[in-house]
């Protein structure tokens, strides 16, 4: 069946984290759509493909986000159904914190079209590198902050806790400002688990080819007064050390039968 869909990610830093396979997919497609986070990202994508269509225009103040995403998916799939090879580019990793990409892939495959998602550099990848955190060392819990609060997730205090989008807690619109009261709700939850003096890190990767990441270390108790934006991620290092089960350890050490 003619028509295909390739979903790619731009990486976080404009241009310099764009993989060769993603670039090839973007350049060879007959139709390109993109959703860049910052104007500079959109300018760069338009330089690569001047004929590309931005999905950013689907956002509107007061518009339900779910409706916005439905429209994005429709815009991506329309040229596929016309028989075109389509590439849709999303900021960061296209499969991480991006629901329209997954939905477009699902619908395209259900309709019988070839649909592929290519991996890319995510914000979490940048965080691990720039904060020197190895998720394999202690284990890692990674939640969207609103989802973390809403679903009252249990926390393993011996593993790193990463909370995304803490600056737009409880915001399902097109948020640009942080609601301090909601941040307080998150702080209350965290203080049930960690002492107020436990150090946390407020992190934001640079979206530009230049510039340093923001990494502000603060006691959790000081979080309410910290500078937090829509792009801020909260990292809470482990409080405890995990101890191993001696029975399991002995069983693992037994020679193979």
């Amino acid at each position, binding site marked *: 069946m003619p028509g295909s869909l390739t979903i790619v990610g731009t990486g976080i*830093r*404009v*241009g*310099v984290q*764009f993989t060769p396979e993603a670039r090839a997919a973007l350049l060879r497609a007959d139709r390109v759509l993109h*959703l*860049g*986070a*910052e*104007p*500079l990202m959109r*300018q*760069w994508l338009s*330089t*690569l493909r001047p004929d590309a269509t931005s999905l950013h225009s689907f*956002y509107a103040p007061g518009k*339900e*986000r*779910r409706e916005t*995403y439905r429209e994005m998916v429709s815009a991506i799939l329309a040229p596929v159904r016309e028989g075109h090879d389509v590439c849709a580019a999303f*900021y960061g990793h296209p499969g991480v*914190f*991006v*629901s329209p990409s997954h939905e477009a892939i699902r619908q395209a495959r259900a309709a019988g079209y070839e649909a592929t998602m290519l991996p890319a550099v995510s914000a979490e990848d940048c965080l691990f590198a720039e904060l020197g955190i*190895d998720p*394999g*060392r*202690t284990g890692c819990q990674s*939640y*969207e902050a*609103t*989802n973390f609060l*809403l*679903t009252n997730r249990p926390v393993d205090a011996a593993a790193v806790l990463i909370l995304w*989008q803490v600056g*737009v807690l409880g*915001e*399902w619109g*097109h*948020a*640009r400002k942080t609601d301090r009261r909601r941040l307080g709700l998150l702080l209350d939850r965290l203080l049930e688990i960690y*002492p107020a003096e*436990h150090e946390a890190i407020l992190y*934001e990767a*640079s979206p*530009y*080819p*230049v*510039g*340093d*990441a*923001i990494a502000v270390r603060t006691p959790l108790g000081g979080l309410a007064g910290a500078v937090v*934006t*829509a*792009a801020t991620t909260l990292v809470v290092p482990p*409080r*405890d*050390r995990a*101890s*191993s089960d001696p029975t399991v350890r002995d069983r693992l050490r037994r020679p193979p039968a």
Partner: protein
Amino acid sequence: MATMRQRELSDFLVRLGDEPDLFEEYVKNRDGVMEREGVTPADRDVILSGDLREIRGRLRKEYSEPDEALVVMKEEPEPEEEPPTVMEPEEPPTVMEPEEPPTVMEPEPEREPQAE
């Protein structure tokens, strides 16, 4: 002209992202490359400072689009009678299970929990 000067910063950053040779040269000689490419002294200072907020602040002056840091990818949760579809795994995670004993990631030595 102010408008011309301001566009030059974003144009320079787009070129850095799009031209690997230029980026490689920039990493080796930031001052020299920026001077040659016509980046103004004020913009050069901001870039060399590495201050993300300052860089963003200067770039925002160049665009007419609304002032925003990122596109937030989040949906309001489904009503409770429906199964959740956002940010929750549809099935038990299987990807993170090691297929063979880890050889690189040695666990940390056991010790008592940190005193609080």
